[in-house]
C-alpha cells in the first residue's frame, strides 16, 4: 500500500537514484519534480498526490498524479495541455488544482512562470546569430602543425624575397637610385663637411669686406650663400649641366653627382646646416630632396649670377 512516509524515509536515508548532492544543496533529477530540490514535499515518489508542469516542443502540459491511480503506473500521470497565453494558463491551473494543497498549487504556478520566461528567451536567441562551436580532432591539428613547420623550412623565405627584390631592381630600371651605397655616402658627407667648413670661413672673411666693397663682393657673397644652399642640391641633381657653373673646386669631385634623397625636407635642412655625420649611424637613411625647392633655388642662383 502507499505509505508516503515510509517511502520518504527509505529514499532519503538509504538511496535514491534521482538525488544529486552538490556543495550548495541537494537536488532531485526526477523529471516530474516541480521544484527540482530533494524535499519531503517536493519528491514525486514520496507524495501520492502531486502535480507538475512539463514542456514538449514549446507546449506546456500540466501533469497530475492521484492516489486512486497509484496501483496503475501506466496510467498514473494525467496530462492536460495548457494554453499558450500565460494568464489563461494560470487560470487553467487554478481550475484543475482547485482543492489541492496550496503549496503544490503555488509551486506549480512558479514553475510555469519560470518556464514561460525560458521559452521567451529561447525564441529570442534562436533569432540571433550564434557562433557555432566546432571541434577539431587533435590528430588534424598536430598534422597541420607538422606540415606547416616543414613547409616553412622548405620555403626559404628570406632568400626568395631577396631574389625577388634584386630581380625587380633589374627589371624596373629605376631612373633614380633608391638606395645609396654606404661608402660613397660617407665620402659625400665628408666632402660636405669640408665644404661647409670652407664656406663658413669664407663668410667670416667676407663680411667685413661687404662694408666697403659694394657690388662685386656682395654678389660673390650672395653667390656663395646661394651655392651653399644650392650646391647641396646640385650635388644631388642629376643630368644637370648647369651645375658645372659652380666655381667651387671641391665641387668637381671625381665621382659624378649622385642622387641623394632625404627622408624629409626637415632632415635635409638639418643635414646641410649641421653637416654632421650623425646620420651615419643609420644605415638606411635615404637622403631626399624636394625638387621644387631645388629648382627654385637654382633659378635664383642663375638670376643672381
Amino acid at each position, binding site marked *: 500500500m502507499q505509505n508516503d512516509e515510509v517511502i520518504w524515509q527509505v529514499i532519503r536515508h538509504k538511496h535514491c537514484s534521482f538525488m544529486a548532492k552538490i556543495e550548495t544543496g541537494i537536488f532531485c533529477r526526477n523529471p516530474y519534480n516541480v521544484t527540482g530540490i530533494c524535499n519531503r514535499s517536493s519528491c514525486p515518489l514520496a507524495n501520492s498526490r502531486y502535480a507538475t508542469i512539463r514542456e514538449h516542443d514549446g507546449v506546456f502540459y500540466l501533469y497530475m498524479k492521484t492516489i486512486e491511480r497509484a496501483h496503475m503506473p501506466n496510467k498514473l500521470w494525467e496530462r492536460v495541455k495548457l494554453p499558450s497565453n500565460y494568464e489563461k494558463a494560470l487560470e487553467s491551473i487554478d481550475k484543475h488544482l482547485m482543492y489541492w494543497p496550496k503549496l503544490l498549487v503555488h509551486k506549480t504556478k512558479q514553475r510555469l512562470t519560470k518556464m514561460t520566461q525560458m521559452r521567451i528567451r529561447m525564441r529570442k536567441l534562436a533569432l540571433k546569430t550564434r557562433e557555432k562551436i566546432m571541434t577539431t580532432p587533435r590528430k588534424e591539428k598536430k598534422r597541420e602543425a607538422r*606540415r606547416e613547420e616543414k613547409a616553412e623550412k622548405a620555403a626559404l623565405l628570406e632568400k626568395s624575397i631577396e631574389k625577388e627584390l*634584386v630581380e*625587380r631592381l633589374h627589371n624596373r630600371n629605376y631612373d633614380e*637610385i633608391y*638606395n645609396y*651605397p654606404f661608402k660613397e655616402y660617407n665620402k659625400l658627407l665628408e666632402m660636405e663637411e669640408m665644404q661647409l667648413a670652407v664656406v663658413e670661413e669664407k663668410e667670416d672673411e667676407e663680411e667685413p669686406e661687404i662694408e666697403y666693397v659694394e657690388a662685386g663682393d656682395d654678389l660673390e657673397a650672395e653667390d656663395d650663400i646661394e651655392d651653399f644652399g644650392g650646391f647641396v642640391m646640385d650635388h644631388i641633381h642629376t643630368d644637370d649641366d648647369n651645375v658645372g657653373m659652380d666655381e667651387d673646386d671641391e665641387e668637381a669631385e671625381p*665621382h659624378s653627382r649622385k642622387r641623394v634623397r632625404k627622408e624629409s625636407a626637415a632632415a635635409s635642412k638639418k643635414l646641410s646646416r649641421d653637416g654632421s655625420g650623425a646620420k651615419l649611424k643609420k644605415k638606411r637613411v635615404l637622403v631626399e630632396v624636394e625638387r621644387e625647392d631645388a629648382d627654385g633655388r637654382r633659378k635664383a642662383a642663375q638670376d643672381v649670377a
Partner: protein
Amino acid sequence: MAGKRKKSDGEEGGGGEDEPVIKKEKTKKEILPSMIKNKDKRSEIHAKLQHQKKLDKRKRAKARDAAIKRALELGEEPPAPKIPRTIENTREFDETVCMPDDEELFAGNDADEFSSIMNRERTPKILITTCRFNSTRGPAFISELLSVIPNAHYYKRGTYDLKKIVEYANNKEFTSIIVVHTNRREPDALLVMTLPNGPTAHFKLSNLVLRKDIKNHGNPTSHEPELILHGFTTRLGHRVGRLFQSLFPQDPDFHGRRVVTFHNQRDFIFFRHHRYVFETKETKQTDSKGTKTKDAKDKVSQEKIKARLQECGPKFTLKLISLQNGTFDTKGGEYEWVHKPEMDTSRRRFFL
C-alpha cells in the same frame, strides 16, 4: 627444414634487392622481410638489407665523386649533380595551374571583383574588427596590422551581426573588411571580405609572432609598401593572391623600401614584413665611384647586388579554409572552395 627454408628465402629476398639482373629472375620468388613471421629472423634479414643498401649508397657516392674529380682534372664539365627529389618537384599534376599565356585568366581578371581596385579606381580602405570576445593577444596583433596595412581603421565589434557590419562598411565606402577571430586567448582565424559583394576568404592563423618578440626588429615607416606574392600557382591561388593585392594600395612608394610578402608554400601562406637595403658586394677593382648599382652589375661579373632584409612587423602563417563567393553568409552562401579533411589524404596535392 623449416629453418633452412626460411634462410634460403631470406637470402633470395636479399639477393633480389642487390642485383637487378638476378632480380628479374627471382621476382616471382622474392619475399619481403615483412612477410617472415619469425621476429628474430625478420629483424636479422631486415638489418642485412639495410646494411646492404647503405653500402650501395656509399659506393655510388664514391663513384660520383671520382667522376667529378676526373672530369675536373681533364678539364671537362663535371657531370651535372642530380636534382634531389622534393615535395614541390613531385607535386601532383593539377590542371588548374595558371599558364603564363592564358587568355581566359586575363579576361577573368578584368571581370572580377578586384579589378576596380587594381585599376586604381578605388583606393583600398580597410575595416578591421574582431570577433565578439576579444582576448589578450588580439589588440596587440590588431595594432600591428594597422601599422602594416595602409589606410586601415579599427572599429570595436560590439555585438553587431557580421551582416550588419557589412552594410555599415558599404555605406562608409570601405573596400575590405578583416575580422580577427580569437580562440583560447590567441588570434586564430582571419576573415577577409572584399566589398561590395566580393569574395570572403576564411583563413586559419597560426604561428603569430608580434613585432616586439622579434629580435632586431625594425620599425616600419608609413610609406606604402611593396608587395610580393610568391607561389600562387593555381587559379584558386591566383584569386587569393589578388585578394591580398586588393588590400594594399597599387602605387608602392619605393623610397620607403618596405616590402610585404605573402609566400605560398604547400598551401601555407607565410606573411612577412621587411625593410630592405641594396648592397653591392665589393671586389678589389670596383672601389668605385658613383656608378649606380645596376651599372655595377654589368661592369664586372664578380660584383653582385644583394638585398639585405630587416624584419619588422608581425609574422604569421595563414591557411585557407574556405573561399565564399559573396559576403559572409554561412547559411545561404555559395562556396567556391571549402577545405575538407579528405583533401589531406595525399601528401603531394596542393590547392593554392
